[in-house]
């Protein structure tokens, strides 16, 4: 596993908004099959990193390689089709669609299926993440259902790499445990996962490796046990959390 080339390589990535530097010279790699945790205090640049890698923002500087291919200049939809997909921290369902239709969209366009196969694919994925009520309108869905739908949508495009942006936030203990199992299942199916989380238990439970961001930079990298004892991390992140 170690000998394989990394699935994602980020090189000297910088993203500025006006005078503000949200992502500051980040470099890291992600190995095929890995579950990587990205943690850091609010405003550390986690979601911006997700947006830049998934293609919603163009980086100000730096390059992004996916499976050895330079994807820096590609649009979000192109990266999605290549196999990078993501969920949204603030859930962004398509309100006019049912749950199933929401998931179908990404099967249709991310994976390029026809209507019938997309529907089948969407059903499969929904079942995989444990969604039962598929034809309900968005207004009547629960938070858990919406979170699951975000994940299902990210999976329906058949990705190699998935960003899960705070999918556990706002869930109770049982729900969180259920979700952790789901993520493990996803990883077991061969998909590389990048988990962005505030809930430390989840990071501890799920990830093989963690990178810690603060003000756009990596301040620590290693296993959860390693990084959680580093003083910078405690002061930057854990300290703030208390």
């Amino acid at each position, binding site marked *: 596993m170690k000998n394989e080339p990394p699935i994602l390589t980020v090189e000297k990535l910088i993203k500025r908004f006006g005078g503000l530097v949200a992502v500051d010279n980040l470099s890291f790699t992600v190995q095929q099959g890995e579950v990587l945790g990205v943690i850091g205090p609010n405003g550390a640049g986690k979601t911006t990193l997700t947006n830049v890698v*998934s293609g919603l923002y163009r980086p100000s500087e730096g390059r992004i390689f996916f499976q050895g291919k330079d994807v820096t200049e590609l649009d*979000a939809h192109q990266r*999605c089709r290549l196999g990078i*997909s993501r969920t949204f921290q603030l859930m*962004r369902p398509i309100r006019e669609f049912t749950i199933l239709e929401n998931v179908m*969209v*990404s099967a*249709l*366009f991310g994976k390029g299926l026809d209507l019938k196969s997309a529907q089948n694919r969407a059903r499969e994925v929904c079942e995989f993440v444990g969604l039962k009520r598929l034809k309900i309108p968005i207004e009547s869905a629960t938070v858990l259902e919406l979170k699951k739908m975000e994940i299902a949508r990210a999976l329906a495009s058949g990705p190699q790499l998935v960003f899960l942006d705070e999918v556990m936030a706002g869930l109770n203990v049982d729900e969180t445990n259920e979700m952790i199992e789901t993520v493990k299942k996803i990883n077991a199916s061969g998909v590389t996962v990048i988990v962005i989380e505030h809930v430390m238990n989840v990071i501890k439970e799920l990830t093989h490796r963690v990178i810690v961001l603060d003000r756009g930079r990596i301040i620590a990298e290693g296993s959860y046990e390693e990084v959680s004892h580093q003083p910078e991390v405690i002061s930057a992140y854990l300290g703030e959390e208390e």
Partner: protein
Amino acid sequence: MKKLGMLIILAVVALGFLFPLYAGPYPLHVMTTVLTYMALGLSWDMMLRTGQLSFGTAGFFGLGSYAALLTTLYLGLNPLASIFVGGVFAAIVAFALGYAILRLREIYFAITTLALAGVFTVVARNLHDFTGGPEGKILPSAIFNGDPTKVYWLTFSVALGSILVSELFQRTRIRFAITAIRNDEITAKSSGIDIFKYLLFVFVITSAIQGVVGGAYAQQYGFVSPESAFSTNFLLLPIAMCLAGGIYSTLGPVIGSVILGVLSEYLKLRFPYGHLIIYGVIIVAIVLFMPHGILGMLKKIAQKTRTEVGGNENEK
């Protein structure tokens, strides 16, 4: 249930197709106009389904009018073929402009399409020798020598074609793409939808429809001028009809154009002076009391009676 629906649709289409056989020339003429607005309304609504509010309807209508009439006039092209040319010309212009303007959103897209229509008008008015300038150009005879039945069938075909395209949009993956774009472009992008490609596709298709409708209109009267071809009537009336009927659907614009089209004619005959005031009041009333249009209201009533009757709600 589905079969019954198909039967009803077929019956309505047949009734519409056979309209000239049982209606006199006057209702025929009014319906021809209604069908013109219906096709324009549908094309506008199709663009709106992507979330883009276009005010370019009259502009592409006018381009189609000119292209059709001038190719017949100068190149002796068969009028029917020229209508097709009108559509192609509008599509080409839309394709070229689309690259520049489809990154605009909301009010900025709306006003730019309106301004483009203004540019078309000024150009048509000032190329005196080619377009006939402000006075326009006439053909020696109208299409089919003005035979109202054939003109009706022509317009009916155009409107039916628009309905079919609109339904195609509703029943294929296109619906998923454009509904997603309208609701949330970021989600759409992240789900693998090439937003620009779909916007361009819909913009070109709807402009082509507008061009065809314009071509058919110009050939119907054998006449084109900047004032008539780019008239704001062809912009505002279809929009009003769609909103009155109900947007984001095929049925809404169809219902809206028939109801408002017939109503305006009736009001005119009933109240020779000031009928437009009543028309205006009706439009205001629709906005205030039927915010989702006639179709939306019908759906609401249907839902109510269904729940009252106790029908199953699970059925989607």
